[in-house]
Structures are given as structure tokens and as C-alpha cells.
């Protein structure tokens, strides 16, 4: 199989370049991450992140043939050759396929991604009805891989101000949680032309999410709640 991989080591290279790789491999059931690990045996300077290698940790998000995805759950047989692999767009490159996620997590932390409840903790858990719990489906599964946010043009133009689809999905996850008591403050925090309203429903986020979540729908629900409280 043929690969074209983005290479950049700021200590050595003056500019990024694409390196060709050839791997003697029948695609079969193998995933892209398997191929990358074999390529690293050929060239041990090739830098990429990985951990769980089964689509749960979100470490190996990258741009595969122009589309963001997780290498570990992208089947080699589904890819057109030469497979072009680049780092996630819109974030500073540390080395090769490794990007600096600081801005991404800064936005994530800005929406207070934790339950705010000022009541004294009960003896056991804070219970929810099954119906209320159902609201969190499609929200809590996010693994923060960054595929959606880094495919969003609004995030490319304003990464310091726009929360981005992943952060907004998580914002709605806590707005939708009946155990949370900070709803008004959470909506206040997002009522801003940059933080929320940079979303122009481009829907690249929905297109690339490896967990098949729908940030656009969550953003729509945040807007609906704002309308509901304003009129």
C-alpha cells in the first residue's frame, strides 16, 4: 500500500513536507493505525499519538485523505491510495501528526464540563428518571478526539473565541442534565456572538464524528433553550 504522510520536525525541518511510504501489506481487516505502526518500524522518527487502539481514547485523530477520523477504526480497505495523512487542521503542529490540543481543551474547560449542584450530596447517587437520563444519550459518548472541532471553518477562523462543536456538545450535555443547577449561568456564558453564534450550521462536525454524534443538533437545542427563556 502507498502512503503520503505529512512530516514536520521543527527542530530539523525548515518547512513541512509530504513523505512517500510503501508498505507490503494486504489491506484485509487491518486498520490504518496498524499500518502506521508498521511504518514506524521502517522509520522510527514518524510521530503520531495512540493509546487504546480501539476508538475509545481519541488519541489518534488525524486527517485521512482529506477527512478527519480516528486511525484505529478506519479500515485500510476503505481508503483510496495513496493514503494521504495529515495532522488535524487548524491546530499548531508539534511534530508530524501530533498537534497541540491546548486551544481545544481551553474551549472545552470554558463551558465548565462538570456537574454543578449545590445541594448536599445524598447518601447514594443523585438519581435521574430513565426519561431524563435518555436526554444524555448522544452527548455523553463524546471522547474529545477533536475531529469535529478541527474540521469546523468557524473554529479555524476564531479558535480563541468560538467554543467549537465538541465544547458546545458538552455544554449541552450539562444543560440537558436534570441534576445540574447552573443552567441559567451556562446559557449566559454561551450567549455571545463568538462563543456560540459563530456556528453557521456548516455541519462538518456531524460529517466527521467517529462516534456518530450530532453537535449541530445539540447547538440547535442550546439556541432553542435561549429562545424559550427570552420570549
Amino acid at each position, binding site marked *: 500500500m502507498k502512503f503520503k504522510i505529512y512530516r514536520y520536525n521543527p527542530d530539523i525541518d525548515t518547512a513541512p513536507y509530504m513523505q512517500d511510504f510503501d508498505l507490503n501489506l494486504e489491506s484485509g481487516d487491518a486498520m490504518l493505525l496498524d499500518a502506521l505502526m508498521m511504518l514506524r518500524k521502517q522509520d522510527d522518527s514518524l510521530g503520531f499519538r495512540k493509546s487504546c487502539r480501539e476508538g475509545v481514547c481519541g488519541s489518534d485523530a488525524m486527517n485521512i485523505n482529506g477527512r478527519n477520523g480516528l486511525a484505529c477504526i478506519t479500515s485500510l480497505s476503505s481508503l483510496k491510495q495513496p493514503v494521504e495523512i495529515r495532522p488535524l487542521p487548524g491546530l499548531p503542529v508539534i511534530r508530524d501528526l501530533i498537534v497541540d490540543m491546548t486551544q481545544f481543551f481551553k474551549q472545552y474547560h470554558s463551558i465548565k464540563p462538570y456537574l454543578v449542584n449545590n445541594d448536599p450530596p445524598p447518601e447514594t447517587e443523585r438519581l435521574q428518571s430513565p426519561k431524563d437520563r435518555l436526554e444524555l444519550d448522544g452527548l455523553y459518548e463524546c471522547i474529545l478526539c477533536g475531529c469535529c472541532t478541527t474540521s469546523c471553518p*468557524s473554529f479555524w*477562523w*476564531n479558535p*480563541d*473565541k468560538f467554543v467549537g462543536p465538541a465544547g458546545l456538545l458538552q455544554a449541552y450535555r450539562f444543560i440537558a442534565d436534570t441534576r445540574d443547577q447552573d443552567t441559567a449561568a451556562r446559557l*449566559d*456564558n454561551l*450567549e*455571545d*456572538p*463568538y*462563543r*456560540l*453564534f*459563530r456556528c*453557521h450550521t456548516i455541519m462538518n462536525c456531524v460529517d466527521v464524528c467517529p462516534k456518530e454524534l450530532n453537535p449541530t443538533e445539540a447547538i440547535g437545542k442550546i*439556541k432553542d433553550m*435561549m*429562545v424559550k427563556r*427570552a420570549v
Partner: protein
Amino acid sequence: MVNRIVTGAHYGLRDWLVQRVTAVVMAIYSAVVVVFLLLQPEFGYDTWAGLFSGNPMRTFSMLFLLSLFYHAWIGMRDIVMDYIKPASIRLTIHVLVILALVLYVIWSVQILWGL
């Protein structure tokens, strides 16, 4: 002034809603005009002048144009917010766009009512 990233202007919802409402007004107006034109057996200057001779059509047209200008303001502002980074240049462009749109409103009144 320190160079820090600041957000929290606490607006945006109204503009987002207005953009949707004005889009509906423009869609209805466009449909009405297209249907009217298709229903005409013959089409010429007289039909066109006749359509705009009554006050209801002039008022409806004015509503359409006001919707268009407000819609355009939000759209232009969004483009400027995305691509123009220095706040001073952004503000200048905002002011110029607003002034231009206000002029268009005055001009529209003059055209529709033949002042």
C-alpha cells in the same frame, strides 16, 4: 490596554432569530412576485408599473427591502467578524456597512414612492 482575548458580549440570539424571520419574509415576497409574473398572459412595462402602483405592494416591497437590509447587516457583520482581526478596522467596516444600509433604506423609499 492589555492584549487579552475577551468574549462575553451577551448578544447574538436576537440577530440569529431576526436572520431567520427576515429570511422567511424574503422567501414569501419572492414567491409572491414570481407567481404574479407567471400568471400574467402578457408581460411588459404596464404590468410591472401596475404591480407597484398600489400602496399594499409598495408597503410589502418596503418590508421585503427592510428584511433584506437587516439580513445583509447580520451577514456582513458575520463575515467581518470571521476575517477581519484588528478591532479598529472591524469597527470602521461595521460603521460603513450600517451607513450604506441606512442610505439604501432612504433610497428604497424614494424609489418605491417615486419621491
